[in-house]
């Protein structure tokens, strides 16, 4: 199984391209770290590879086919700011079950306490909310996870907690993982392969 970005170019305006012929592929069971300077287009690439943005040229292939246009996507994106990825007017159980319904063992595994389910997002911390975003993205149909600075806003301890939970599940299900991060130390700790964004552009 493989997720592939093939010869992707993208720009919000024609004059100002952000991505120029980018190639990147992630295989199942592989954990790829993507590091690069700010504003270089890492997040844009993450959005394209998860199907939230359409590239102006090039294609994203999942097992050789384009990503499905509707239904549950096998490629799930986890954002940097959980509070922006959650409806503030919904109680947490509604957010959690948006895509699939996790059972109690799963919630235990990911460290979600039962009493959090009846709370609103503003009543939980960033680390707690991020667990919901991760749980929401880990449905049975998920094959690839793209984590865009998933733990950057969290403190070291919560960061380590969340990665341990996440890696556990990823390993068990042999999912593919793309980690977008600034921290080389983090990428080296969790990934099987680290690529620099500059190098992606270079191999045109």
């Amino acid at each position, binding site marked *: 199984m493989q997720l592939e970005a093939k010869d992707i170019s993208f720009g919000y305006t024609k004059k100002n391209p952000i991505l120029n012929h980018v190639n990147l592929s992630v295989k199942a069971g592989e954990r790829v770290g993507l590091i*690069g*300077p*700010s*504003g*270089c287009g890492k*997040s844009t690439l993450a959005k394209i590879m998860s199907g939230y943005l359409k590239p102006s040229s090039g294609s994203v292939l999942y097992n050789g086919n384009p990503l499905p246009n509707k239904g549950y996507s096998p490629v799930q994106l986890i954002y940097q700011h959980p509070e922006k990825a959650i409806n503030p007017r919904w109680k947490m159980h509604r957010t959690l079950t948006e895509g699939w319904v996790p059972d109690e063992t799963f919630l235990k595994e990911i460290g979600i306490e039962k009493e959090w389910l009846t709370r609103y997002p503003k*009543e939980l*911390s*960033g*680390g*707690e909310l991020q667990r919901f975003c991760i749980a929401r993205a880990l449905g049975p149909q998920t094959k690839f996870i793209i984590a865009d*600075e998933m733990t*950057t*806003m*969290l*403190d*070291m*301890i*919560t*960061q*380590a*907690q969340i*990665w*341990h939970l996440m890696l556990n599940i990823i390993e068990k299900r042999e999912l593919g993982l793309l980690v977008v991060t*600034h*921290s*080389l*130390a*983090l990428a*080296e*700790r*969790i990934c099987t392969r680290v690529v620099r964004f500059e190098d992606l552009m270079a191999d045109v």
Partner: protein
Amino acid sequence: MSRDNILDVRNLSVSFLMYDRGLEQKEFNVINNLSVSVKEGEILAIVGSSGSGKSVLAHAILGILPKNARLQGEMTYRGNKLTEEVQEKLRGKEIAFVPQSVTYLDPLMQVGKQVIGTRGSKDKQEAVFNKYGLRDSVEKMYPFQLSGGMARRVLLSTAVISDAKLIIADEPTPGLSPKIAQTAMGHLRSLADEGCGIMLISHDLDLALTYADRIAVFYAGTTVEIANAKDFGIGEDTLRHPYSKALWRAMPQNGFQPIEGSQPYAGNLPKGCLFAPRCPIRTRDCEQSPIMRPLRGGEVCCFHAT
């Protein structure tokens, strides 16, 4: 090195009165009995988890807390009490602020003009943009056109072109690549070397360790330890508080081992030591509140630290 304190915060507590459900009001103690000081010519880094009250402290010093906040304790700037009038007079001039998020910029004004503000000049703005690697075209952009990292550099520019004596930088570097983060921090460092006091609020421990002189570790709205930056470099054994030790162990380069649990919620704090529920060395004594005490050249807020 004996230098004067430029900023002194003594026993500060901040709470917010909020509506809970319907007309019920509830008080959230966000900062509890916190003391910290910044000396001339030093960078004091404040590290701690999100929700530990770091930003609230910055806002309290600047006097820009919302109306429902209640303050107790004392803050002095160069020996003068920071009252509302003093804060209003000093902020943006002697005390500069690097806010945490792009939402602090005016969305309808070009960023170049915002950086110049009321006291800067075009030359200064161009020089600082150049230093941070922002292209000339950026000055004509509006905040929504900036990437996260560019916005951060613009925010930083607004503070460093003033001739402030005290800079409070609230998370100035997340979203920046290491190279630009280092440039920015190097710039703050040279401002400090020229005599400026800098309070650097960050959860990026690595960065704080490289550039700061002292580190204040926050947990649940209070300082649990004040250490020399060197102590973190040496390792777990030179640190004093069990939370600081846990923080050190959780760094990706030091084992990546987390401890269980999470920081208590501001509306529901435990009695006594706030870290006790997660602490490996807690005893019955910890049901009392510990106070800050000097220890091995730093300060710690724990009964059992040795």
